[in-house]
């Protein structure tokens, strides 16, 4: 926890031990308990206790920090800022790791994982909504921008969604072509690999000139939103970055369809369309989706950088914070990006599991 007289000064750290009173003792006990549990043999009961302790600790620390912030503000000027200290972020990170590890060891199903995630996020979310954490500096930054904040998130999602749409429209047929015609792959992959190695800011710069020229030459394009800065170059660059994983995934997916299956299908009289839709597509889908998943997570992160060329999105908050050394503003931009990334990751993992009907690990109990 850091307390500062205003948002620009870096403030003084407040240790957890200074706050050790009342209910905080409970948290300290939990922390020690967690340490002891890590020494315990990995029985199911111990693992579940670990999950419960880590969950309560993660929630409790958040509430504790918010309460302290409220006390501090009541005792000083309204300009005072109370930020979450690096120690708390670190503890949250470690608790996340502990939870992930314990759930892995328990071989918890999707439902149990979702349950634990809800148990951690729901109370913290409720606290945010109810205003209990309003005195934390990150929430103050939010309060300053609450009217535009959701628009910024929507814009971020829009950039990612548009880029993915274009990527799929181009990447899936391209991936199929690289599978069907070896030459296409030989021509395509060096190109895509080079694109992937260009630093993102450089790529935006490279795209600005031709797009600006396009817009200047054909005013109709300019009116349609194509210009050197803003959404168009951002989406275009993201599309270029996302192509490689999608094309690779599509190629890998089609290539791992057993040749025995295609041969048998042809021999039995499948038409080329039946072979494609009934055998190749369903068998390639999980691998193709893995490629799309990587592209999506990458796009969620990279979309932040498009703010530099005026595309908007959460990156704009992040950079504004960086340029004015307002760390909480940076966090306000970064936290939803991370959350979006995790969300996208989860959705795709679920989809991939759903499209994998006949692998040994999905074996139904018969």
């Amino acid at each position, binding site marked *: 926890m850091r307390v500062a007289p205003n948002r620009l000064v870096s403030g003084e750290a407040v240790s957890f031990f200074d706050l050790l009173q009342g209910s905080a003792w409970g948290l300290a006990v939990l922390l020690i308990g967690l340490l002891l549990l890590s020494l315990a043999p990995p029985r199911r009961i111990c693992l579940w206790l670990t999950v419960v302790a880590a969950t309560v600790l993660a929630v409790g620390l958040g509430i504790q920090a918010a309460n302290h912030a409220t006390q501090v503000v009541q005792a000083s000027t309204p300009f005072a800022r109370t930020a979450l200290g690096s120690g708390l972020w670190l503890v949250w990170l470690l608790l996340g790791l502990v939870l992930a590890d314990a759930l892995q060891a328990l071989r918890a199903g999707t439902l149990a994982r979702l349950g634990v995630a809800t148990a951690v996020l729901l109370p913290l979310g409720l606290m945010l909504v109810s205003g209990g954490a309003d005195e934390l500096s990150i929430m103050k930054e939010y309060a300053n921008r609450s009217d535009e904040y959701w628009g910024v998130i929507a814009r971020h999602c829009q950039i990612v969604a548009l880029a993915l749409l274009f990527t799929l429209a181009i990447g899936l047929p391209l991936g199929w072509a690289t599978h069907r015609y070896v030459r296409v792959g030989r021509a395509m992959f060096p190109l895509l690999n080079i694109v992937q190695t260009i630093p993102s800011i450089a790529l935006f710069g490279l795209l600005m000139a031709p797009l600006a020229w396009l817009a200047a030459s054909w005013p109709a394009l300019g009116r349609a939103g194509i210009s050197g800065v803003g959404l168009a170059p951002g989406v275009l660059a993201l599309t270029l970055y996302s192509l490689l994983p999608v094309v690779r995934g599509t190629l890998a997916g089609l290539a791992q369809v057993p*040749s025995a299956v295609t041969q*048998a299908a042809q021999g039995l009289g499948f038409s080329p369309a039946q072979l494609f839709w009934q055998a190749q597509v369903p068998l390639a889908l999980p691998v193709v989706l893995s490629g799309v998943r990587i592209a999506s997570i990458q796009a969620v992160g990279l979309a932040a950088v498009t703010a530099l060329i005026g595309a908007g999105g959460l990156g704009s908050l992040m950079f504004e914070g960086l340029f004015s050394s307002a760390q909480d503003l940076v966090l306000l931009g970064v936290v939803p990006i991370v959350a979006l990334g995790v969300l996208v990751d989860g959705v795709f993992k679920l989809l991939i599991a759903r499209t994998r009907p006949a692998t040994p690990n999905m074996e139904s109990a018969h």
Partner: protein
Amino acid sequence: MIEFANVSKTYGHTADAPKALDDVSLRIGSGELVVLIGGSGSGKSTLLKMINRMEQPDTGTVALDGQDMVHMPLRELRLRMGYVIQSVGLFPHWTVARNIGVVPTMLGWKPERIAARVTELLSLFDLDPTTYGPRYPHQLSGGQQQRVGVARALAGDPEVLLMDEPFGALDPLIRTALQDEVKRIHQASGKTIVMVTHDIDEALRLGTQIVLLEQGRIVQVGSPLALLSQPANKQVADFIGRSDVGIKLLSLQSAGSLARVEAPQSTPFLPASASLREAVSTLALHGCQSLNLLDDTGAHAGVLHATDLFNRRHTGSLPLSDDQGQHA
């Protein structure tokens, strides 16, 4: 009837590329079980794949019932033929039932008829329909998978069944069981079956005609007996394996064919349908001179005497058919 006329095929375009098939002419009659056999690179698989046009001849024609295949619509042609490959190639994302029903579905059968056909075929291959129908291929053993593969090939009631080394990847016990099933199906349905193998014992067990290929040419065509007793040249004799031709000849004839009508003796039992080869094995195992034979119902069907077996061999006369020399 399938007819190859002067078929040649070369893979690759260089002038010195070896010919996969070199001026092959062959007639496969309806209802035959023809085994194409030869070493690797003999062209046996290429020849088989020309029947459902997975391969095209460079020169020459392949005709089905007198009609040149080039002029037939490809899909309809393939739907008229069952196709079994060594690596099975079941659709891993479909249940066993859906795998078997795929050709009938493409033929536009009604769902009830397809379901009935799937049940019938699973039962034919000793797989309980309610247990195995809903399973996925990866939940089956290798032998069960290939049973489903053969069932899938038979599902559309094809005129011709093509089998490309169907049992090559299976262990000997399961292979023998599946060979018996194919033989049974062939005898019961009278379908034309063309099978590729490199296993001479499989060829002798199953084939009504055996086609021996080497380097893209047909070396000899004939019944198992003809191949064993009159090999066309030294290569054929080598391929068959000279050292145990006598034993292989015994495997072509049933024990019942040499049975004497006698009362049962206190000797071991053997089904009359077993081959003379098995009879010799049983005699050697028990160290005795005769065996009681049993018919399909388990009733006494005569006695087989070791002396009859070896007298026939000694006189040098070759058994010509199962009926000849039957004492009963």
